[in-house]
């Protein structure tokens, strides 16, 4: 903080939440903060839909022959779990909630560059979810979230069209969100907010947006081709009509591998903020972390073929994709080392968001290291399409992205709602989630190495013990996820007022806006005079 004593505007009792109360004022809002809350509500609901499917799957796997459902139902469960969690929770999770809420404030703007487009993306998202939920309630889909041809285009008789339409539509919501963020970061920065003064969260959201914009259209066209093939019986991917099913996999993974980085990059951004705030210290290697986000966004596009090592892809293409996959591991490793180094000589407190951040670093490290197993060609031949892969990507997406999402929600909750949540409960939930997660997914690494294939409704008896362990862990994890839902909603009514900056953190959102912010965020557009994370100027709070 600069030495000049700045006269702060008085607390304005009219904020973005209470400025209007009508339903219309919410459904037709163009305020990025209100849209963020619309998304928060939608994706939380969808998260529990996907989570419910996961619980049923885990329960079914208690017994080798399937404890509760027929294989056909099981197939529908994992398909819905995948579709809902990937496209309707993980991909929109951090960008549409925290990203929408924070990016304009962090760059010092009154709103995103295109507020109406932002609202439109939410409606597109809801429209897409409606299609998908229709597919769910009208009998389900059993293609797997990957929609592999020719199974999806010719063989299954379930509601593939509705599910694919849902994903197709939602894709446009992602594209518009990404477009909005990119333009905002480029064109809406406050005076003095240079690129290297941006918080790292903005850097990571920028990298994410690049992937949104460049990868999503390819998925859209691929799903369109599946729809046409299914509807008209033409043979784009059907070998009986001269098509090539492997080509579908190329197009699909051109999107879906970078989509993994859509899920994890925002999480990395959140963790960078959390580590700095709770060490009260500048992030170590700001530029290294910022550039590694961009490197991940770029390299993420070179490696999709590692999903196809055993698919009948050319041996040579496999070698190239394997080598490039090792390359994408480097920027992720750089981030982990820099976060760790940030702790050095810090003043570290263990508030709930920090527990999530530390959990993220640990679980992401394990997920990343097992990613090396999968990038290694001959090892992948054995563990591909087994529970090893399941465990790996859940460590990245649930252990990584969801932990960071929860950490971020906790960190900015006082800003978003103006209320404090009960910290003891929040820490307890963080620990329960961490323990439950490991109990659920670590046994799956072993299962995978032993050879249990994924997407199996029934399995040989020797795998039972590990499956039971995993299900036991999943019930702890499920409980862990319910806790924040309860105490965060409780805090809305009973939580004490937060004040503008309860964590004494840096950043325009903490220092220049009240909690909750006013509709236009700032009274005057701030002029930025120093770097992000200048904690040395803030002193240290007495505890």
């Amino acid at each position, binding site marked *: 903080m600069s030495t000049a004593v700045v006269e702060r505007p008085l607390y304005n009792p009219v904020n973005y939440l209470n400025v209007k109360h009508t339903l219309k004022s919410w459904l037709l809002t163009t305020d990025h903060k209100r849209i963020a809350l619309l998304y928060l509500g939608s994706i939380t609901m969808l998260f529990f839909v996907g989570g419910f499917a996961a619980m049923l799957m885990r329960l079914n796997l208690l017994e080798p022959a399937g404890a509760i459902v027929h294989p056909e139902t099981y197939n529908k469960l994992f398909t819905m779990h995948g579709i809902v969690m990937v496209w309707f929770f993980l991909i929109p999770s951090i960008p549409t909630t925290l990203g929408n809420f924070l990016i304009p404030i962090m760059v010092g703007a009154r709103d995103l560059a295109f507020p109406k487009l932002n609202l439109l993306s939410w409606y597109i998202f809801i429209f897409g979810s409606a299609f998908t939920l229709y597919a769910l309630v009208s009998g389900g889909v059993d293609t797997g979230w990957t929609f592999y041809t020719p199974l999806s285009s010719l063989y299954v008789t379930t509601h593939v069209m509705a599910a694919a339409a849902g994903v197709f539509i939602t894709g446009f919501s992602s594209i518009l969100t990404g477009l909005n963020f990119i333009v905002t970061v*480029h064109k809406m920065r406050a005076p003095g907010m240079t690129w290297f003064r941006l918080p790292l969260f903005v850097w990571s959201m920028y990298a994410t947006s690049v992937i949104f914009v*460049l990868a999503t259209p*390819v998925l859209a066209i691929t799903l369109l081709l599946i729809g046409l093939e299914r509807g008209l019986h033409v043979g784009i991917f059907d070998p009986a009509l001269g098509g090539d099913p492997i080509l579908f996999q190329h197009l699909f993974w*051109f999107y879906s591998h970078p989509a993994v980085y859509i899920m994890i990059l925002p999480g990395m951004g959140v963790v960078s903020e959390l580590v700095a705030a709770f060490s009260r210290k500048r992030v170590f290697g700001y530029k290294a972390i910022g550039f590694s986000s961009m490197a991940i966004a770029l390299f993420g*596009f*070179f490696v999709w073929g590692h999903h196809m090592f055993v698919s009948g892809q*050319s041996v040579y*293409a496999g070698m*190239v*994709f394997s080598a490039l996959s090792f390359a994408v591991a480097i920027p992720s490793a750089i981030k982990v080392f820099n976060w760790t180094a940030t702790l050095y000589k810090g003043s570290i407190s263990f508030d709930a968001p920090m527990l999530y951040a530390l959990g993220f670093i640990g679980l992401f490290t394990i997920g990343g290291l097992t990613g090396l197993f999968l990038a290694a060609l001959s090892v992948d031949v054995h563990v591909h399409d087994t529970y090893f892969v399941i465990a790996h990507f859940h460590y990245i997406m649930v252990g990584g992205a969801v932990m960071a999402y929860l950490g971020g929600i906790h960190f900015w909750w006082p800003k978003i709602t103006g209320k404090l949540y009960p910290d003891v409960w929040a820490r307890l939930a963080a620990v329960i989630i961490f323990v439950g997660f490991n109990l659920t997914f670590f046994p799956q690494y072993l299962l995978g190495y032993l050879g249990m294939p994924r997407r199996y409704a029934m399995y040989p008896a020797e795998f039972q013990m590990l499956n039971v362990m995993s299900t036991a862990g999943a019930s702890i994890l499920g409980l862990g996820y319910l806790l924040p839902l309860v105490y965060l909603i409780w805090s809305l009514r009973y939580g004490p007022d937060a004040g503008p900056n309860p964590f004494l953190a840096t950043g325009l959102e903490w220092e220049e806006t009240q909690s909750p912010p006013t509709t236009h965020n700032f009274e005057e557009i701030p002029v930025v005079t120093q770097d992000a994370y200048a904690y040395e100027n803030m002193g240290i709070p007495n505890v």
Partner: protein
Amino acid sequence: MAELHPEPIVPVRIYTWVFLALLVLAALTTAFAYVDLGIFNTLIAMLIATCKMLLVALFFMHLRYKAGLSRVASIVGLFWLGLLVVFTLADVFTRNWTPQGKPW
């Protein structure tokens, strides 16, 4: 903040010349299709199409007169399309190659 640069107003004369050039190129590419040149048919057609694309993009779409960002966006789009095509073909082309099974 935004760069304050008023864009120049391009004279109609330039648009007219570009349009005429486009028409000539379109006629040319149609004419070439009636001659069998083997692989060169495709190459010439793509070369002419790219010339036309550049004319439209540089003059009609003002890329020639624009600051960096628009150019970056268009180049990034084409580059990523290149990635998709090149890596996909890298598999399709080499699927029938058989390694000789010797470690290096």
